[in-house]
């Protein structure tokens, strides 16, 4: 099994005026290719901070985070931005689709930035929208789509540059139960097709759908194993 992500004794402190918030207190974690991992825990336990480090959005105060063998904490802004573009897909709780662009254009955006030729962009965006069952909604703008549909467009966008790692932060947080279930199924399908998925969630059904669940509390991993029930 190939290790895709390796975090070693990672600490993340957020300095305050006199003190500091210790969001992560020496977390070590390995994620292998093809895994479906859920990070759960109470609010403020450090799960989003960990996700930010795993996604090369933030750098650790100490310790190292390697993704595909690269220590992302040492990369400069330009390099880490390009690394995220080509290797990591993000799905946010609030979708963050650009309202002026159609679903297809939103999906094509990261490809355009990566320099994918227009014909290839068009072909791949159509394929991705079909994959998330929105093949007939390609020309719709976000305002013309439901919350669940917008999240599926956001997932298609996250997959645009064929990332090795898909990260999702509360992807069902803005959706009703039925729509959330559709998104959970889609993540399962993505993982079955070989995508490595890491989700941070409060949603128990989403956590149960993962193959591995990491429980956090007070900036530490307190349990790491298969989901219960």
């Amino acid at each position, binding site marked *: 099994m190939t290790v895709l992500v390796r975090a070693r004794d990672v600490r993340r402190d957020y300095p305050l005026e006199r003190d500091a918030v210790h969001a992560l207190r020496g977390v070590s974690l390995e994620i292998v290719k093809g895994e479906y991992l859920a990070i759960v825990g109470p609010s403020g336990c450090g799960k*989003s901070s960990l996700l*930010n480090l795993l*996604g090369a*959005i*933030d750098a650790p105060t100490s310790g190292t985070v390697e993704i595909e063998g690269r220590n992302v904490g040492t990369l400069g*802004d*330009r390099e880490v*931005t*390009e*690394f*995220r*573009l*080509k290797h*990591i897909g*993000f799905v*946010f709780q*609030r979708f*963050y689709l*650009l309202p002026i662009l159609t679903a297809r254009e939103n999906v094509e*955006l*990261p490809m355009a*930035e*990566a320099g994918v030729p227009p014909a290839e962009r068009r072909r791949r965006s159509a394929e991705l929208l079909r994959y998330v069952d929105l093949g007939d909604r390609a020309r719709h703008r976000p305002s013309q789509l439901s919350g669940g549909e917008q999240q599926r467009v956001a997932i298609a*966008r*996250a997959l645009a*540059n064929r990332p090795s790692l898909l990260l999702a932060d509360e992807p069902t947080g803005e959706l009703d139960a039925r729509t959330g279930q559709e998104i959970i199924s889609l993540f399962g399908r993505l993982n079955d097709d070989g995508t490595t998925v890491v989700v941070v969630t409060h949603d128990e059904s989403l956590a149960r759908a993962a193959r591995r669940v990491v429980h956090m509390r007070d900036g530490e991993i307190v349990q790491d194993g298969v989901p219960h029930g």
Partner: protein
Amino acid sequence: MVALLLALQLRTITIDQRLATDAHLRVGDTAVISATTGTDGDSVTIAAIVGRRADPSEIARSEYRVHLHLDQFQRLIGYGDRVDRFAVSTRGDAAADSAVRAINAAAFGFRAYRSHEIAVETSETFAVVSRFHRAIGVITIVASAVFLLCILLLKVDERRRDVAALRLLGISRRSVMLSVVLEAALVSVIGSGVGVGIGWVTSLAVNWHYQARYQTPLRFALVTGDIVLFAVSLSLVLGIVAGALAARRLVRTHPLVLLGR
């Protein structure tokens, strides 16, 4: 037959539009003109009705205007064979210069001017008014520009979450900057285009109202090519500056901070 002969012998005059309207006169009508009310005068035929020229100095004049033959005019007012002013039409600028020189050298008591010099002198008041209007215009534009700048900065700042998401997706600072600046420039050009359209329609309404009120073809409001070019250019520059300033601030802020985390 006598009436026909009389009509053929009548001298002709022209009157201005306002007199024609107020006195219900038309071309071909016969009128009697005299130096003072109640005295005998000459019967004349109205040969033409003259509209007012597009001249600002005509606007404030409330008197009626009648043009008649010089000899008849002199006889009616008993002024004799004398004139205060007369105009000489020349062929070309060089001829005008030599005519001015010849008259000023030969005719004692007369002073010849080029029509341009008279126009400059008589329109001095309007030139001052025009400068005053320009100053008001510049102040208005500068104030509007500052307002526009603030609005654009605020509008771009509203996009902080979109910008954060783009940065997290791996879109470079340069691309974000470029897209924000392009969008701001586009919005500015469209906005100035709409503004020019509104200005043009407003100028039509203003001209229609005041031309009817003063019975003049003078255009009171103008939207010229220079004005359009100035408006679009200023708006474009402001849009680019505002977009660049706001985008620079956004891309220099960490995406997580932009997302409020």
